């Protein structure tokens, strides 16, 4: 007979675990991976594989030889980072090796320097992505155009994202309506399906929505951050659009192009780097939305989601301090 165990109550535990959460997120990322492969072909697949493999490898190496702790690769969080990093780069052949450097920065600098999962103040995948954007500005903004389905060659024709087209066009003195009427500008339907230039995983709004709804149903994420983020971006860009339709694009195109959908549903909702209380999550989402639109319209870069989320990550501790959950009977 065993010795009787003693502990404080409670004596049961739900089946929640970090591992389960991370694998559910991985599962939710699969639709985006599939659409990425469908639009960008082998490049997309190879980039994803290299990114995930490198993230896992670097985490294992760091835990084994530097931190000297038991490895936590199996909890799936490195795979989440790897997939999100891959989804945030253009699916060009060069990226296959560049993404490995991004993975090293994401895992090494973004996550393990702070002590591993749960201790990092910034979203590791975004740290890796922004590092790559600053280090390889040309390669990171050279987008393959989407031609036929399942392109199998590694050679891609480079084009621009809708946001890039607009920014470039407006800078060159064209009016917005001219840019929008240009032949390489995708239609709204194409944008929704993801048939446009852009990063590997961010193009298809529908795939992102499928993944996000799945996570919402499994209660891995709550609606607060995505809704606040996308809603703010929609309203803010809508106000700008109403004020001057020749200068600013319409709100629907705003939220469907670029990384807003992916960022709002999968990057901003990263548990580790977002606020804990519901009210704080709303503040966080609103902040991300405002910053994104501000950077897009008045910043040097055509896209601002990564910077917006990283900036909001840095104020998360403050949000946690000020946005407390409602106390019982208060």
């Amino acid at each position, binding site marked *: *007979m065993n010795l009787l165990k003693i502990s404080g109550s409670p004596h049961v535990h739900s089946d929640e675990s970090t591992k389960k959460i991370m694998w559910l997120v991985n599962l939710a990322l699969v639709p985006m991976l599939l659409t990425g492969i469908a639009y960008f072909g082998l490049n997309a697949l190879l980039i994803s594989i290299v990114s995930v493999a490198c993230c896992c490898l670097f985490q294992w190496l760091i835990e084994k030889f530097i931190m000297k702790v038991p490895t936590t690769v199996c909890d799936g969080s490195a795979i989440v980072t790897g997939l999100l990093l891959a989804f945030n780069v253009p699916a060009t052949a060069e990226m296959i090796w560049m993404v490995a450097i991004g993975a090293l920065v994401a895992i090494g600098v973004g996550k393990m320097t702070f002590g591993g999962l749960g201790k990092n103040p910034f979203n590791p995948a975004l740290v890796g992505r922004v590092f790559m954007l600053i280090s390889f500005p040309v390669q990171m903004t050279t987008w393959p155009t989407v031609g036929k389905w399942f392109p199998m060659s590694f050679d891609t024709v480079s084009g621009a994202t809708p946001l890039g087209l607009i920014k470039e066009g407006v800078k060159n003195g064209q009016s917005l309506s001219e840019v929008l009427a240009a032949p390489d500008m995708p239609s709204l339907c194409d944008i929704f399906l993801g048939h446009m230039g852009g990063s590997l995983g961010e193009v298809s709004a529908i795939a992102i929505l499928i993944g996000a709804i799945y996570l919402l149903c499994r209660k891995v994420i709550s609606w607060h951050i995505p809704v606040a983020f996308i809603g703010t971006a929609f309203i803010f860009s809508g106000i700008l659009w109403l004020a001057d339709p020749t200068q600013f694009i319409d709100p629907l195109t705003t939220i469907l192009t670029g990384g807003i959908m992916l960022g709002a549903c999968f990057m901003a909702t990263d548990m580790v780097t977002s606020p804990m209380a519901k009210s704080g999550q709303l503040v966080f989402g609103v902040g991300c939305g405002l910053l994104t639109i501000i950077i897009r319209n008045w910043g040097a870069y055509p896209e601002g989601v990564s910077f917006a989320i990283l900036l909001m990550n840095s104020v998360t501790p403050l949000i946690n301090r000020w946005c407390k959950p409602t106390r019982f009977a208060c």
Partner: protein
Amino acid sequence: MKTFKMGGVHPEENKISTNAVIEQMPLPKQVAVLMNQHLGAPATPIVAKGDKVKVGQLIAEAQAFMCANIHSPVSGTVNKIDVCKDMVGLPKTAIYIDVEGDEWMETIDRTPDIKRECTLEPKEIVAKLKEMGIVGLGGATFPAHIKYSVPEGKKAEYLIINAAECEPYLTSDHRVMMEHPEEICIGVSLLRKALGVPNAYIGIESNKPEPIRVMTEAAKKFEGIIVEPLIVKYPQGAEKQLINAITGRKVPSGKLPIDVGCVVSNIGTTFAVYEAIQKNKPLIENILTVTGKKLPSQHNYQCRIGITYNDIIKHALGSLPETTGKVISGGTMMGKAVSNLDAPTTKGASSVLVMDEEESRRRPETNCIRCGKCINACPMGLEPYLFSALVKNNRIEEAQAHNILDCIECGCCFFSCPANKPLTDEIRLGKNKVRAMMAAKK
């Protein structure tokens, strides 16, 4: 259907002993009656070694304000008054009584007839509760006569009967409702009379459809008893949450239910009240569930207080299964792990829950991923993750400032934590430290 508004979890219900009819536990050879079976000061023994006692005879008297009388659960001879280790191994004072026959006090009405009429005045009812040593059987063992003496200037508006039985596994309340619905209703009427409130609400979770039906049927014959089905959610049976669920009122931090005009009583207590007032039977027996997923049989027993856990296990199961990992007195969420099976049961005991090795194992702790599940689960709107960090770093004053003392230790935070952090343990430690700090400041 109603429920409380904030937080809560839904653990696996595991009500596997609902169909086990209450059996009578045979008398043991010896009982040890602990002197502090209730919240507050221990009772003072009024018998000495060698004294003959009868069932229901007063053997220890409440001398402090927060205290309850204790009666002999058996007839026989007082063997000794000595130190006795309680179920977690801590030494307490107990009266040991060698059992001889089963001779009851003559005043106790042992007939099975239901006695409906009561001519006692409210004050007299409360006095009789005190005399009979009634305490709350919901877990806190709060002396009943204090609860039903509404302080000057306050007025009770609601009497709420807690039959939520939100803890997994426990079925003693379920069985009492099934077997003694009318007695319970009489008990509720008596308490209503004692408090002078118009209505009493019996809150039953909807996973007990049979008791809801039986109690609704029985309550029809009585005035002002309303059965209120509740959505299944833990901790529905916690006082503040139950008040919130039924009345929508919220008991503020540091206040008592009476401050919002509510008095909450456990359903088991109302049965004890009926027996005490109408049958003159002191609190000498309670109903215990003996259950466990891997046990060959499930039971509900009526046991004399002071019988040891080993006696109960021996009678119910022969011996503990080889794979036993933990024995719990109470439910899985708030019960206590028993380390000393030779310890006697007390008035507040509600179950002997035998957990399998695998079921009882705690999974290893990992890093907090700041998911906020503990915040969402907390029925008091607190931040368990923050307390964990503050207590670990000994920042006790900050923990107090974040209202750590509001925690009701329901265990929802630990239950829902994906990192398996022992949050409830840490908060309990923090509360102890805060109390020590406050005591030191005084």
